[in-house]
């Protein structure tokens, strides 16, 4: 039995979605091979373990409920063999409290957004020299920087929409100059304004006039240091595909998410009800509950092939790992396909796409395969020679 610590929550606007995705995954992990240790990173950034984390109702009683959990930490150096418990502060604990180790064989970060999906937590796992599921620091951080990710895609010949990157300071210094930069780059209304580093749709808005553009730019500055402005494709179709790691990366079937107004908003992704289920049901199922068409039979096969090939190529080029979701858009008026963005840890881990592959890859199997792959990658990494020691100073 391997002990896998599933890390989730985190200091991110997508905290709750991470909880949903993680609980889904924990429910599907093969318990004959793995023992799961749920590790919750609270909004305060502190880490907790405890079986109560598996109970969705607990999250409604935060932060009080944290008192029933054990606080832990991962020390940033090799050889700790897992998580270290932190003594509770208080009179009694001074006598009884001792640091203990909770042994862990594999870490499985299931975060969305900042600090968890963008290479930060991966950096800590690297420092601790522990095996972990998913992309490494570089692949994660490039994926989560929408602008850099576009540049990477473009560099290997995948078409992307033009985009203008604007810094927070530039925007706040002079809105009219910021606007001018956008128009000088040849962009015209309607425009899309997005935070450059955030994964969800938070802070994303569509602007059809200058006042709305101003408001959108100022809004992004609340959440991010950079805004990415792109043309808004009005007659749009989105196509998503998932790629997973293996000896050779594998590509899933594609899906067409169906949005209410042409753009997936945070509400569409996580709050909109998919019918009679009601808001609550939809919200607690995250990405898996979105209205969508999976493996559409009437989709132009050219698009399908192009999407699958591009995703595969970009996954390899970035050195991604685990399971990622690549989002494309089709400008239906011009019949053109563009790469839009890459989610290194997609909502619900995109299991709903793998289930529909031929032959189907069930969620449990998907998880086992990416966890095994993480251990293989770790073994390779450990084989690499590390030269540590005193040379210059020892002379």
């Amino acid at each position, binding site marked *: 039995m391997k002990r896998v610590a599933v890390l989730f929550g985190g200091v991110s606007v997508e905290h709750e979605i991470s909880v949903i995705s993680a609980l889904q995954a924990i429910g599907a992990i093969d318990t004959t091979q793995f023992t799961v240790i749920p590790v919750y990173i609270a909004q305060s950034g502190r880490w907790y373990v405890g079986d109560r984390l598996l109970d969705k109702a607990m999250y409604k*009683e935060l932060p*009080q409920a944290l008192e029933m959990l054990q606080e832990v930490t991962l020390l940033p150096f090799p050889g700790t063999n897992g998580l270290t418990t932190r003594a509770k502060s208080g009179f009694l604990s001074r006598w009884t409290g001792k640091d203990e180790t909770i042994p862990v064989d594999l870490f499985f970060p299931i975060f969305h957004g900042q600090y968890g999906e963008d290479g930060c937590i991966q950096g800590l796992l690297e420092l601790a020299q522990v095996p972990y599921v998913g992309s490494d620091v570089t692949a994660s951080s490039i994926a989560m920087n929408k602008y850099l990710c576009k540049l990477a895609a473009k560099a290997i010949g995948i078409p992307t929409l033009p985009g203008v990157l604007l810094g927070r300071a530039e925007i*706040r210094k002079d*809105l009219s100059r910021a606007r001018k930069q956008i128009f000088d780059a040849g962009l015209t209304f309607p425009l899309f304004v997005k935070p450059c580093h955030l994964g969800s749709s938070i802070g994303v808005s569509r602007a059809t006039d200058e*006042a*709305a553009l101003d*408001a959108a730019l*100022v809004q992004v500055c*609340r959440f991010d240091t950079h805004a990415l402005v792109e043309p808004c494709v009005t007659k749009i179709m989105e196509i998503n595909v998932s790629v997973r790691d293996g000896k050779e990366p594998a590509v899933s079937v594609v899906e067409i998410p169906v949005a209410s107004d042409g753009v997936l908003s945070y509400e569409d992704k996580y709050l909109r009800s998919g019918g009679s289920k009601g808001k609550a049901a939809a919200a607690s199922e995250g990405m898996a509950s979105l209205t969508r068409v999976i493996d559409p039979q009437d989709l132009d096969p050219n698009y399908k092939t192009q999407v699958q090939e591009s995703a595969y190529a970009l996954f390899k080029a970035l050195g991604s790992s685990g399971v990622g979701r690549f989002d494309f858009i089709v400008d239906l008026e011009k019949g053109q396909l563009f790469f839009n963005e890459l989610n290194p840890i997609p909502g619900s881990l995109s299991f709903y796409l793998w289930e529909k592959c031929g032959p189907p890859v069930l969620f449990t199997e998907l998880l086992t395969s990416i966890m095994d792959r993480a251990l293989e990658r770790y073994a390779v990494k450990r084989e690499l020679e590390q030269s540590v020691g005193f040379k210059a100073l020892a002379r």
Partner: protein
Amino acid sequence: MISFLIVTSTVALVMFGYRRMLRYLRYFQQEEYTAVRFHGWLRTNRAWDRRGSALLAAAFVLALFTPFALAAVTVGFVLLFIGEPDPRKAGKIRLNMTQRATKIFQLALGLFASFVALFTVALRHDIPLLLLLLVLAVQAIPHFLLLANLLLSPFERRLQRKFLNEAKEIFRRHDPFTIGITGSYGKTSSKAALGHVLSATVGPTFCPPKSINTPMGITREIRERYRAEQRYAVIEMGAYGPGSIKRLCDLTPPDAAIITIIGIAHLERYKTAETVYQAKSELPQALPAEGLLICNGDDDGARRMATEFAKETTLLYGFDTSKGHLDCIGRNLTFDAAGSRCEIEWKGAKYELRVKHLGRPAVSNLLGVFTMACALGADPTIAIASMKNLDQVDNRLVLVDEGGVLWLKDAYNSNPVGFEAALEMLRVLEAPRKILITPGMVELGHEQELQNERMGKLAADSCSTVIVVGETNRAALERGLRAGGLPEESIVAIPSRDEAFARLRELLRPGDLVLVENDLPDLYEHKESF
């Protein structure tokens, strides 16, 4: 056997006391641990124990015949214990087990348990008398809370003083540019909006959430959330009586101030409008001579303050230029379902403001916010753009579409200015049928009847049906409605909130526009049984 039953019934009673005390603590907390107010609540809601006492009384009768009545006491209190709801998990305003609440609770429960134990030991040979005396103990449960609070108060005061001094020291050391906001209405929304706009323009701003406006509330926020890079601070200053703003200004000395409206809110506490004015004027008085004072020029009280306590920079904002000079003028204010739109004139330039907020008072507050931000050096275009992103505060004149019915929710504590603005929205928004549901306004002292009548009269023009909830303001509202010419069959009076909403649901048809004005919190409306 009997002594065993004595032990079990005592334990069961204490278990029941534990749950019951939590329930009372919830209301004691809502009344801000004030003995007088908690007593008032107990009296008006007749919230004394019935179930426990009834059980003990029944057991007393039984005990006259057999001491085994104690078995019934045990079973009865265990059942009552199970039946008591947990106020930490249920209810509109839940019990929050803060450190203070925990301390009061533990001490009060300890006192209760020792009392019960003492009685039991002393009277173990006279069970009927014991049972009668235990009725007293059960009735005294809320008073044990008061006693515990009294015993803890010297320590609590010392702790509060320590925290207060720490907070003061934090502000003294970092010295953020502090803006105080006061007024009878609009403080909380102005504070939230100003915090938002300043953060988007001049820099990181400290802005306590919700309507935190007391020294201890602000102290806690400063100690727990103030960050050194926050060069600006926006503090809502609530006036609960003469001297309370002065105390806040002592904690967070203001460099600038916004005065929204000097109205007649909480007239019950103040008695006269002049005392309200005096209490609010403690804020401009606390500003240094070189400070920045921004007042609502449309409001006579605020305008008077601008003259009486003029500072080096004193600016007026508003819509109405007939009252005198304005530095920031709002013109051509219009409303539609998407929000409000107006033109702002500031320093010779014109800006187009478009916000989600509805109603003249909300836009007036934003004019104040805009003036303050610009006076502090914000780029007006960015200030305007950031206001467009502002979300409305829940339940303060918010328009929502629920299954084809449009709801104007103005459930938050109502006042004449807000009520009038809400009625204006009811008038300008298009709908085939317009319904008002309201219990009227409270806490207006001797003005209450007059103001409710006035609102009734105003409402008569713009409503097709009015549902008057409860008895408090029924007569005044109905008088006004009739005087305004609303036909008798369009006035529906219903005693309780739940019934009123049930009736409303029956009436509703798609396309209707409903104004929910002043939906009072459960402190007033919901009756719990004990």
